[in-house]
């Protein structure tokens, strides 16, 4: 069942993941630099990408997930992923994203995240979108800031990543009252 639209931005096309993306996902998300900024394992095990893509599709059908592959418009190359974990009762969603290291520093994450926030508010009827990142990874916070999100706090040593307790920053944006850049 394919009930997500395709989202086009200036340079990107956001489309649903397909099982055929699994090999590329494993390669890109298996990069140590990407894995270190997410909750992903490293090395990235065989078969996990297929499971992950299948779980996204199930979540989309249940209505608690929205997830898009980030691809370059034109050439169609997959460069990352962006996702919402939706809580219908509270009309909010947690946003997460990753971009292949070879594509960092070009504003692709910001472009994809903006499109996802807009999709969450206008298509899914959300009231709030929030996101968390490791405090040691301020680049991710800058993406959130550029998307109009507001820094709301820091959860101290909230996440254990590879045996180390790490701080996480949380950012949020509301549908009303947020100046969307």
């Amino acid at each position, binding site marked *: 069942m394919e009930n997500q639209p395709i989202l086009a931005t200036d340079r990107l096309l956001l489309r649903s993941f397909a099982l055929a993306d699994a090999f590329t996902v494993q390669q890109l998300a298996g990069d140590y630099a990407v894995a270190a900024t997410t909750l992903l394992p490293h090395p990235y095990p065989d078969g996990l990408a297929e499971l992950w893509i299948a779980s996204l599709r199930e979540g989309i059908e249940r209505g608690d997930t929205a997830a898009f592959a980030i691809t370059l418009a034109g050439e169609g190359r997959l460069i990352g992923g962006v996702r919402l974990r939706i809580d219908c*009762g509270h*009309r*909010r969603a947690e946003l997460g994203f990753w971009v292949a290291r070879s594509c960092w520093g070009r504003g692709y994450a910001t472009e994809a995240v903006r499109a996802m926030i807009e999709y969450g508010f206008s298509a899914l009827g959300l009231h709030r979108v929030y996101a968390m990142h490791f405090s040691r990874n301020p680049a991710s916070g800058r993406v959130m800031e550029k998307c109009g999100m507001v820094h*709301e*706090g820091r*959860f101290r040593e909230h996440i*254990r990543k590879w045996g180390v307790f790490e701080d996480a920053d949380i950012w*949020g944006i509301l549908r009303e009252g947020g100046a969307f850049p």
Partner: protein
Amino acid sequence: MTGQPILVTDRLLLRPFTLADASMVQRLAGEYAVASSALEIPYPYPDGVAEAWIATHRPGFERGVHAIYAVTCDGDLVGAAGLVEIDRDHRRAELGYWMGRPYWGRGYATEATRAVIEYGFSVLGLHRVYAMHFSRNRASGRVMEKCGMVHEAHLRGHVRKWGVVEDIDVCGVLHGEWRERCTGPAIRECRAG
């Protein structure tokens, strides 16, 4: 050693709920002032909800996802306190509590939550305990502060309670700072239930 132990503090005894507590839970938690300050408590409080809630306690404790206590004083149920969302991977848990309206203003919430935090750190081996309260409910924030918790975040419009979108605050305490700040025993006695 899989059972949920009884925790004794200066004035309170924390024990697992039993179905016999259900009517008192309905009466105390069903009061508007209590229900409106807790995310999950309905109002009016329907028959059967207290029984259903209590029935989840033991299976959840055995699965290791929560540890919920009846807070009693001289044998009377005065409220509830516990750890939920226990996450072994991240060694953290969320603290939650409510006190019956007749028992507000006596420091029972602080005394009970201190015992539960101590239980989380010393028995469950947690690294972090955090808690959330409606921003409009400053009294709950003061309980957290008195327990040595640090204000960490103000989440705008994060929850919807009875159709109204509300801000919440998040406080947290880490095992190391708890050991530094917690003077005096938070639990006088911990014994098998």
